């Protein structure tokens, strides 16, 4: 699946799933711009992607005007974004009884509003090009729920609804919009969970193991490729059979 000559933007590409996605798209021939929240993070991404001609850039998705400015810069320096992967995300877990407004707002801004902002920013050039790929990283939690993650689950479910609506809006222009919903993937985010909870979660996975970031990246590569031209508005569940919606 070649992405030769296409410009791909992957948000949150420093580590975990985002890093695997950025590397995989770059290895498939795309010119990948990976973003991080810090200068040093962007530099590290740049070093990693350099072998494929990719670059790292700073993006703080919560910062006013930052996404529009980034898309503008990319357009001038590298060409219009053909593939957008909205991956950047954070967690602020806690029981609802104890959840602060700040915890809710931070998740909504970083995990959901950023998807709206970035998707809108790339849309103009994609509409003109009559082709485009937007892939949003949702989560199994947005479909099945998870105690302690009301904010995160709400944002991820929001992404899925956003994806379906946007897919209907822009389908006539050849732009596809899909989600990949990772299950329990071995990353820093899930390594932070207590051992007992990890074991309990693995017990619910049909394949009996955690997923790898590469499993998600491969699904994203497929949706970004020409092979997935007739797939839109869908949520591709990559969870080892943890949930079969």
């Amino acid at each position: 699946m070649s992405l030769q000559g296409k410009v791909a933007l992957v948000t949150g590409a420093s580590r975990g799933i985002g890093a695997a996605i950025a590397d995989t798209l770059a290895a498939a021939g795309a010119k990948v711009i990976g973003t991080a929240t810090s200068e040093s993070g962007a530099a590290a991404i740049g070093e990693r992607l350099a072998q494929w001609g990719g670059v790292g850039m700073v993006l703080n998705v919560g910062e006013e005007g930052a996404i529009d400015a980034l898309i503008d810069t990319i357009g001038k320096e590298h060409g219009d974004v053909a593939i957008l992967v909205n991956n950047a995300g954070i967690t602020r877990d806690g029981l609802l009884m104890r959840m602060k407004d700040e915890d809710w707002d931070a998740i909504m801004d970083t995990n959901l509003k950023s998807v709206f902002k970035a998707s809108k920013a790339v849309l103009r050039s994609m509409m003109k090009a009559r082709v485009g790929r937007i892939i949003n990283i949702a989560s199994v939690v947005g479909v099945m729920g998870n105690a302690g993650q009301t904010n995160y689950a709400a944002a991820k479910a929001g992404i899925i609804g956003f994806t379906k609506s946007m897919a209907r809006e822009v389908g006539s222009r050849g732009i596809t919009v899909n989600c990949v919903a990772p299950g329990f993937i071995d990353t820093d985010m899930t390594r932070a969970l207590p051992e007992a909870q990890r074991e309990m979660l693995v017990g619910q996975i049909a394949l009996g193991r955690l997923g790898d970031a590469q499993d998600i990246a491969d699904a994203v590569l497929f949706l970004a490729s020409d092979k997935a031209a007739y797939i839109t508005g869908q949520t591709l569940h990559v969870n080892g059979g943890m949930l079969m919606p």
Partner: protein
Amino acid sequence: MENIEARVKKIVAEQLGVNEAEVKIDSSFVDDLGADSLDTVELVMALEEEFECEIPDEEAEKITTVQQAVDYVTAHLNK
């Protein structure tokens, strides 16, 4: 310079995929020329490019006919 009305009509015809002869000065994009809401957004984008201006969203919403587009462009090009 080609006059504004002719340039607007040409863009409308191109964007909406209709014959230029069908585009009258009083044609409504949606009612007469079969545009949907996304077409009208794209049309405004094309006008912005042709006339090298930026049309704010609240102004763009009011442009629903060829005449309104010509009026808007005329008013803003002379500034």
